[in-house]
């Protein structure tokens, strides 16, 4: 009896150790990336980086303010185009989708989330850029929105499914119309989770380069309108990183650091939001 117990404890310790080791191994790349980008990029960060336009080759100084602004603009557009249809589709799938059509939508969303992002870039290129004969912030926003769509849809659906059936019945039992019950009870109950899912989707597309190469393209100047080619951090990083100039490389690292910082802030904000909501209950 005693022997078995000590043996069990041994196995327990061994398996725990393995799990810990695996977790560590998974964290190492993250740590290395953060460390490497920070150490290389921190030197390039100064006030000018956040406030000035890029300087032409050969001139020292300059910044990436236009790309920063452009990324915000593109992500903003992506949210505008991507979140409402994504959430509504999720609501449809979870609350009204008992038909064969819903299965099709669900399947398409799953397939879409596996489509390489460059393909989506080309798709939007043919759809919008070729027709309007110009790269534009619109096109970039649409490309990112298409990329977000399946994630937002499926997250919304999953989270709505987690809302207990009893709450829907409670609302319906009070003589509340179904649309109102869905909106004011079901969606509201799942809102913090959906918000987190959306934030993670935003964080994911904020770092996308490929779909923007064919859509928003790039621009060395301040964004002047939504129909103009627009600079963004990922594309700027790409452009600078493949250039032969050392000070551009330095700037690319700095931009990478800023981008990671933005994504990290979004992620942390999403989590804090959820924790805050849970605690306030």
């Amino acid at each position, binding site marked *: 009896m005693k022997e078995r117990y000590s043996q069990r404890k041994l196995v327990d310790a061994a398996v725990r150790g393995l799990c810990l080791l695996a977790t560590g191994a998974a964290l190492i790349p993250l740590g290395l990336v953060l460390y490497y980008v920070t150490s290389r990029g921190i030197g390039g960060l100064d006030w000018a980086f956040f406030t000035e336009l890029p300087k032409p080759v050969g001139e020292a100084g300059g910044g990436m303010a236009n790309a920063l602004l452009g990324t915000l603009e593109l992500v903003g557009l992506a949210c505008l185009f991507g979140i409402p249809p994504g959430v509504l589709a999720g609501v449809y799938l979870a609350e009204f989708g*008992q038909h064969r059509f819903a299965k099709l939508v669900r399947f398409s969303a799953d397939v879409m989330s596996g489509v390489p992002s460059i393909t989506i870039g080309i798709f939007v290129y043919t759809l919008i850029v070729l027709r309007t004969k110009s790269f534009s912030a619109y096109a970039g926003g649409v490309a990112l929105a298409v990329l977000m769509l399946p994630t937002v849809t499926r997250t919304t659906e999953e989270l709505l499914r987690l809302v*207990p059936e*009893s*709450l*829907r*019945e*409670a*609302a*319906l*039992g*009070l*003589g*509340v*119309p179904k649309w*109102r*019950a869905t909106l*004011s*009870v079901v969606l*509201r*109950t799942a*809102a913090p989770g959906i918000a987190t899912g959306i934030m993670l989707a935003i964080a994911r597309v904020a770092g996308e380069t490929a779909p923007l190469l064919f859509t928003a393209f790039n621009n060395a100047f301040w964004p002047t309108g939504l129909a103009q080619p627009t600079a963004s951090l990922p594309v700027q990083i790409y452009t600078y990183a493949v250039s032969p100039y050392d000070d551009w490389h330095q700037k690319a690292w700095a931009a990478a650091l800023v981008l990671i910082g933005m994504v990290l802030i979004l992620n942390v904000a999403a989590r804090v939001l959820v924790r805050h909501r849970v605690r306030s*209950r």
Partner: protein
Amino acid sequence: MIQSLALARTSEATRESARTPARPSAAPDRPKMRAEALRAHFGKTEVLKGITLPVESTTVTAIIGPSGCGKSTFIRCLNRMHEVVSGARVAGKVLLDLQDIYAPDVDPVRVRRRVGMVFQKPNPFPTMTIRENVLAGLKLNGLRPKDTEELVERALRQVALWDEVKDVLSRSGTSLSGGQQQRLCIARSLALEPEVLLMDEPCSALDPIATARVEELIHELRERYTIVIVTHNMQQAARVADFTAFFYLGELVEYDRTDVIFTRPSEKKTEDYITGRFG
């Protein structure tokens, strides 16, 4: 436990004294609701096989029977909640004040406002405060009552919850204990001033003390509301109900005054069930 028994006994006593003079044994001439040849299906399975049953005005009607006999389905048909589940169908009539609630021109949403429902598991809205929960039915229906404070107090007093929660009205509805949550849910239904209140095993998730409180409450509500209660607990049916219906395998076996059902049932099956021989 002892306390709960005592509670139950006192409530029994008050009830007996209140009931005898006020309530004539004969039923009022027109029932508040009446199911006529009511059939309900889940997909291909027939759950109710033609039920005809009156629900008398301002009385408590209990539905008893073993699990799976269709009692929950039956009361869910009384406010058109059965059809909410996909694959569920209803045939036959349910009259509410002589009007068939399954007539094609009747809006189920309207029916549910007149016929409220309390569920087996307490289900207050977790995103709402206690106050908001009480008002939820009105607010979600787009009504803007004037004296909300008074309304909240009245509804919570009706369910004897006011004294327990009056200082914590802005706390979440889910912060209450199970029994308090259930009474909050009853208050939420009552705030809409329904004509009929359906209760689907309202005490099965509650401890004996909370159960006694809810039974007490049912006894008081009976003065103003028509109540239909589904229960697994035959003692409960005997304690709270004026009329009792015994369901078995989707059919109504027997319906009569509660004292008749429990003392001299005319069907063998009813007798077997209430004496615990099966079910």
